[in-house]
């Protein structure tokens, strides 16, 4: 529980006098003493470092004559970059990822050493390939030799040539993992004719490496010597060498043996040719009837790749070395790919591929050598976004040699086609169609981001990681992978297996993704798969088996419009396609007659609620995989809704509450119609607006219709209300939903605040009367609101007068001039009657656009409250943060499932720089780019006066009303820390193929940071059943399952823990902080404020709860902790079970 200790220390430090300024997370424990003394100063002085200041330049500096250099730079920035900020950011990033000269020298020295040692490895006499007895004991052949028998002889001779190839020489390699590729040209004597056949070349290559590895491993120069695969291709091992000592992490040298130039005849390695004979591979000839051998395009490509290492290097270096901008562009593209996890693993879109793409674009004149790195990045993204290489392949080859194969041949054999300059090698041979589509999707998103002129485009484009779990709405793990072997047989993929040398994962991947894409159809935006990581293993071990290469994870990006339907509509029964449809869906397909009279094939999925509809892809995937690929349900681990359980109602297991919220909203709509049509009010109703979280779909637990059991309550007949009873458990918690009802303006309204209040009260009374008379609703009026019971829901109607805030603001100056000044009362009224309804309707609209909004906002709120921090944050501020995830999803797409939305909420909270940025939530897209810039600069100028957390909306551009009264810097910092801890934990759980385990772990708060724990009795916690760990049994709360006869007003807003907390905060607010989870928390955490525990001199105004003590002859005041602890129990009599004092920190 290390993290808790850290958290605690931080809390302690934070109380020691930080005002607006938040310190970076793990700093400051050493500075405590200083901070205490400097508390006053931090208020007056400009805030400490880490805070942006408005720039002040003198007139002379601003208007001096520009130098030539300056003008040039400005012009360059204007033409080559988007803005000066972007230019600086790009320069900074490149500085960070580029290799320094000093390190380059060290790497060069290491390479020279490697070269010397490699050429000195002793040779071995010739033996049969199958006779491997000569291999020394400590090394194993890094290749699965299946089938083992193969013709040919092998001998080891030192390489004829050692060449450095790849990005290291080009200067486009980026930190942190620097790889240097070294090609070892095997002498011609080792190879024989026909070595291209039946993996003979690869066997020799592996043996060559094995012998090399054995000798190099003995050398003290190397820190580690191990095997890996080149680009994940399991027929092509490579040897990894790392220096010993402190440079071990600096560089990895990868040795790739390759054949002598012109050894293989290219015409034999065309994609249509076969080089792995069925007779050898399967021990039988294909089908026996003399049908042609299946082509082995991938196998051929892997052989070809080894022959062109040098020519590729030459091509790249002639183009790239001429222009720094191109190199920068390649480096940026590599960072871009790496952030999106696109370049790693088998079949990734590697840095080498983008370098070649840059070369292609230079050759087609889409990129010019004078372009800046940013422009190169942009051009490549633009190209990727608009070109589909799965349909229209491209080629670097300019010759029109008729012997060269046509592009169409390549399209037949490979899913993505990008030919090199020889015209024979497909550079994208291993890239699957879905990987390319993912690249395209990302490029499109990035282009949109760049075009939107967002201020933080750089940050989102190049600095934000997009791991699979956070990028895709749902993910599913296939585990164990050995099931895919059976799937290959079921899908009849023997030729592919032969081509892939037995790698069933790669062979099955393409067909499986196509199958699922077809099945998910309109529900799917994008399907992506993880690329199996490239393993590394010790030279004394056998290479890892295919089934050990982790799990196969698929990511689904859902299309919300497609999710609403439970029906898969097929063709009409008499059409020829019907048979195909039946075959595809198997037993799920059935004939149905539709309302328009058509009889069609159709598949209907079982889903009643929104959350179940979101999980239809789960049903589709398991059904199709079982039907077509023999993968049973137990091997498909679908991660889409484990978090749903946290926002499910008490007795519901099938819905996450969207439906219940919709019922409440419909009831509200009915009520508002009644209000509009009310007859007999002196003034007409001008607007009815909802102002409650339920009415914007963000109440964590939606209200249910109340049907009170009268025996459970004390009836108060003359006021037709129910009261709680002493001898019963606390009744169910009913929170009235606030509705604001504006009345028309009129000259009859008084112009005095007190009088307006009385007139409003009269209207409240009248409203209650009329609603009872005309519609028979149970009503109860008070001076400020009218409670209405309608269909079991309780609404609280506030009558509002448009001009009242203005009346409260009016101040008359001595000269008689009337001016408007904000007062606390006017601000509060404006917030409650104007801004809150606006926000509610805007978020209500957002929910109609993005059905997942409700789930995300509620999960987020649930989590914050479960961490006992709910009091610090208003409902509205958390709703707005959740809304930001939908309105500003960059670099992602708007979430379509609560799960991914919640993960992004945690990410946003843990990474957002609240100190220097306002969170702009552009509701209804009302703010223009210019206005946003203006808001940002206004924010910087007024930072010190603004709250710690600033959220800007189009309706509230300056004040951030929803965060005015909290959170404090400490609470926000605590939230940031908790989110930063929860995110990796949750992601790890969800990415675990063995199932997420206990998903509630991240929702349980750390309790050991509190000084005192007050445990409450569940009997008096009305929302006990809502707790994160819902109790198996709780108390009866006096509700009937059927509508009862009683129509009395139920007990409203009676929540003993909340009443208790209000009392505690009022009495001890300046001594301690109180933390509680309003959703069924059984414990209140108390944290003493260290500042108020300092002994203080006596002051009549601050004696609250303190006592006078004589300390060293001085009379000082200290908190009377023993008495306060007893007060905790006294004030909460009946509710409090125990008061546990856990630390002795008050003994000052």
């Amino acid at each position, binding site marked *: 529980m290390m993290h808790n200790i850290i958290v605690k220390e931080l809390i302690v430090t934070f109380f020691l006098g930080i005002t607006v300024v938040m310190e970076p997370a793990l700093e400051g424990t050493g500075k405590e003493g200083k901070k205490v003394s400097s508390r006053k100063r931090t208020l007056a002085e400009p805030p400490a470092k880490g805070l942006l200041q408005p720039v002040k330049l003198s007139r002379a500096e601003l208007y001096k004559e520009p130098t030539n250099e300056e003008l040039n730079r400005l012009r360059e920035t204007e033409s080559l970059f988007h803005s000066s900020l972007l230019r*600086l950011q790009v320069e*900074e990033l490149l500085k960070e990822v580029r290799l320094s000269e000093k390190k380059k020298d060290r790497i060069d020295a290491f390479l020279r050493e490697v070269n010397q040692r490699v050429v000195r490895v002793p040779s071995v006499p010739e033996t049969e390939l199958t006779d491997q007895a000569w291999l020394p004991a400590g090394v194993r052949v890094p290749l699965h030799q299946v089938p083992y028998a193969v013709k040919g002889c092998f001998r080891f001779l030192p390489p004829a040539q050692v060449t450095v190839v790849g990005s290291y020489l080009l200067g486009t390699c980026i930190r942190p993992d620097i790889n240097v590729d070294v090609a070892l040209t095997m002498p011609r004597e080792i190879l024989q004719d026909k070595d291209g056949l039946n993996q003979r070349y690869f066997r020799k290559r592996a043996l060559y490496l094995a012998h090399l590895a054995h000798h190099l491993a003995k050398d003290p120069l190397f820190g580690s010597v191990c095997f890996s695969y080149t680009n994940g291709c399991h027929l092509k091992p490579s040897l990894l060498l790392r220096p010993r000592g402190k440079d071990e992490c600096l560089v990895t040298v990868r040795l790739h043996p390759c054949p002598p130039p012109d050894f293989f005849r290219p015409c034999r390695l065309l994609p249509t040719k076969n080089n792995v004979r069925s007779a050898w591979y399967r021990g039988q000839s294909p089908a026996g009837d003399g049908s042609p051998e299946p082509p082995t395009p991938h196998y051929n490509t892997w052989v070809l790749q080894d022959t062109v290492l040098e020519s590729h290097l030459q091509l790249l270096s002639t183009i790239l070395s001429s222009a720094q901008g191109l190199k920068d562009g390649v480096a940026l593209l590599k960072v871009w790919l790496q*952030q999106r996890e696109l370049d790693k693993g088998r079949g990734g879109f590697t840095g080498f591929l983008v370098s070649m793409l840059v070369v292609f674009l230079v050759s087609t004149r889409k990129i010019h050598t004078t372009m800046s790195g940013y422009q190169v990045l942009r051009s490549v993204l633009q190209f990727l976004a608009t070109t589909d290489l799965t349909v229209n392949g491209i080629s670097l080859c300019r010759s029109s040699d008729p012997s060269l194969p046509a592009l169409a041949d390549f399209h037949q054999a490979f899913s993505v086609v990008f030919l090199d300059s020889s015209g024979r090698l497909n550079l994208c041979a291993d890239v699957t169609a879905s990987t390319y589509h993912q690249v395209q999707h990302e490029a499109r998103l990035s282009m949109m981001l760049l075009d939107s002129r967002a201020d933080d485009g750089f940050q989102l484009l190049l*600095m934000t*990681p997009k791991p699979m779990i956070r990028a895709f709405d749902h993910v599913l793990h296939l585990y164990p992978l050995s099931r895919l072997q059976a799937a290959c047989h079921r899908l009849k993929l023997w030729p592919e297996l032969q081509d892939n040398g037995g790698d069933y994962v790669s062979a099955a991947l393409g067909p499986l993704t196509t199958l699922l894409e077809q099945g998910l159809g309109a529900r799917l935006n994008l399907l992506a798969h993880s690329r199996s990581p490239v393993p590394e293993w010790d030279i004394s071990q056998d290479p890892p088996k295919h089934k050990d290469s982790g799990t196969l994870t698929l990511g689904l990006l859902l299309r919300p419009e497609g999710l609403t339907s439970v029906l898969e509509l097929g063709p009409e029964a008499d059409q020829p396609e019907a048979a195909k449809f039946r075959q595809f869906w198997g037993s799920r397909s059935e004939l149905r007659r539709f309302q328009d009279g058509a009889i069609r094939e159709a598949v209907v999925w079982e889903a009643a609620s929104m959350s179940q509809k979101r999980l239809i892809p789960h049903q589709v995937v398991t059904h199709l995989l079982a039907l077509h690929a023999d993968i049973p349900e137990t091997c498909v681990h679908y991660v889409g809704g484990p978090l749903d359980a946290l926002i499910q109602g008490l007795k519901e297991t099938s819905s996450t509450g969207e439906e219940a919220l919709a019922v409440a909203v419909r009831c509200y709509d009915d009520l508002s119609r009644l209000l509009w049509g009310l007859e007999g009010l002196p003034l007409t109703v001008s607007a009815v607006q909802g102002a409650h979280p339920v009415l914007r779909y963000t109440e964590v637990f939606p209200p249910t219709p109340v049907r009170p059991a009268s025996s459970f309550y004390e009836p108060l007949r003359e006021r037709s209300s129910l*009261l709680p009873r002493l001898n019963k458990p606390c009744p169910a918690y009913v929170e009235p939903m606030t509705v604001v009802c504006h009345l028309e303006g009129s000259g009859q309204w008084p112009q005095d605040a007190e009088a307006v209040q009385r007139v409003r009260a009269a209207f409240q009374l009248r409203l209650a009367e009329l609603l009872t008379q005309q519609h028979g609703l149970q009503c109860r009026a008070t001076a400020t609101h009218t409670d209405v019971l309608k269909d079991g829901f309780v609404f609280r109607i506030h009558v509002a007068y448009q001009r009242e805030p203005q009346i409260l603001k009016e101040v008359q100056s001595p000269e008689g001039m009337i001016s408007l000044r904000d007062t606390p009362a006017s601000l509060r009224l404006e917030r409650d009657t104007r801004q809150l309804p606006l926000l509610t309707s805007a978020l209500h609209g957002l929910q109609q656009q993005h059905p997942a909004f409700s789930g995300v906002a509620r999960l987020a709120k649930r989590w914050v409250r479960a961490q006992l921090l709910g009091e610090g944050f208003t409902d509205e501020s958390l709703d707005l943060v959740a809304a930001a995830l939908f309105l500003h999803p960059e670099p992602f797409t708007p979430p379509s499932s609560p799960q991914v939305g919640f993960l992004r909420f945690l990410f946003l909270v843990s990474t957002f720089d609240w100190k220097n940025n306002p969170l702009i939530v552009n509701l209804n897209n009302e703010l223009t780019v210019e206005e946003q810039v203006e808001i940002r600069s206004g924010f910087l100028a007024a930072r010190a006066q603004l709250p710690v957390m600033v959220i800007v909306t189009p309706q509230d551009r300056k004040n951030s009303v929803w965060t005015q009264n909290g959170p404090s810097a400490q609470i926000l910092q605590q939230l940031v820390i908790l989110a930063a801890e929860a995110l990796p934990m949750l992601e790890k759980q969800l990415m675990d193929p063995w199932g997420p385990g206990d998903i509630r772990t991240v929702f349980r708060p750390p309790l050991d940071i509190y000084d005192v724990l007050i445990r409450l009795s569940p009997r008096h916690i009305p929302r006990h059943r809502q707790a994160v760990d819902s109790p198996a049994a709780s108390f009866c709360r006096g509700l009937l399952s059927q509508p009862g006869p009683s129509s009395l007003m139920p007990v409203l807003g009676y929540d003993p823990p909340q009443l208790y907390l209000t009392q505690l905060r009022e009495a001890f607010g300046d001594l301690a902080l109180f933390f509680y989870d309003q959703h069924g928390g059984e414990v209140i955490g108390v944290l003493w404020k260290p500042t108020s525990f300092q002994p203080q001199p006596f002051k009549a105004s601050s004696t609250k709860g303190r006592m006078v003590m004589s300390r060293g002859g001085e009379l000082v005041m200290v908190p009377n902790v023993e008495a306060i*602890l*007893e007060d905790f129990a006294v*004030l909460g009599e009946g509710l409090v079970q125990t008061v546990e004092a856990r630390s002795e920190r008050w003994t000052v």
Partner: protein
Amino acid sequence: MVARRRKRAARDPEDRIPSPLGYAAIPIKFSEKQQASHYLYVRAHSVRQGTKSTWPQKRTLFVLNVPPYCTEESLSRLLSSCGPLQSVELQEKPDLADSPKESRSKFFHPKPVPGFRVGYVVFQKPSGVSAALALQGPLLVSTESHPVKTGIHKWISDYADSVPDPEALRVEVDTFMEAYDQKIAEEEAKAKEEEGVPDEEGWVKVTRRGRRPVLPRTEAASLRVLERERRKRTRKELLNFYAWQHRESKMEHLAQLRKKFEEDKQRIELLRAQRKFRPY
């Protein structure tokens, strides 16, 4: 001051509860069951010469640190042993200036949740104050005979109290509005009387209600007038007409760029300090 305090502390016998200068400390507990106690710090109410106070001098006891569960009734019960009481009032803060107490409506100004408060206890005779100063305690707020409700008991009775009586509310609103309407009518009548009648220096007051209404004297109205003036002026102005205007606008543009550049540099500096350029 410090020296005196020290002397006093030294003079105190061991068992006396330490109390600040001028105050006496009285321990107070909720009931028998509690171990530790809070301390009321009391002294005779006094104000500086010349200032007026709502509370009668000499007869008033000023009480600090009244615990939240101690109501006015229980405080008066506890202090009644010292002498007959006239009134007991608990407040959030000691009142500094002389502020008239208006009777507040219970409908429109609900009682705040009590925390630690200060009290003003007015005895009928000055002897009550001195008797109270000598109290030993510990005082018990809640006893068998006079139990004080806390916790669930209190919240349920508070809830019952909060259920409003609409008739009483209506009566209160009606009386208030009647008085208000009367006041407004009087004011209007007075204004009508003064309408058009010059004062002793000969000035005539012009109001909005007169025959020829004028602009209201509000800040918003005067701002509107200024804005209209400004717009009129800008419409007449020529932009980028003279060579110097051209030059100046160019320079202005350059200055803007410089300022932006400076801002960007600062931003970068900050990001670099936060190590925000490590992509992974």
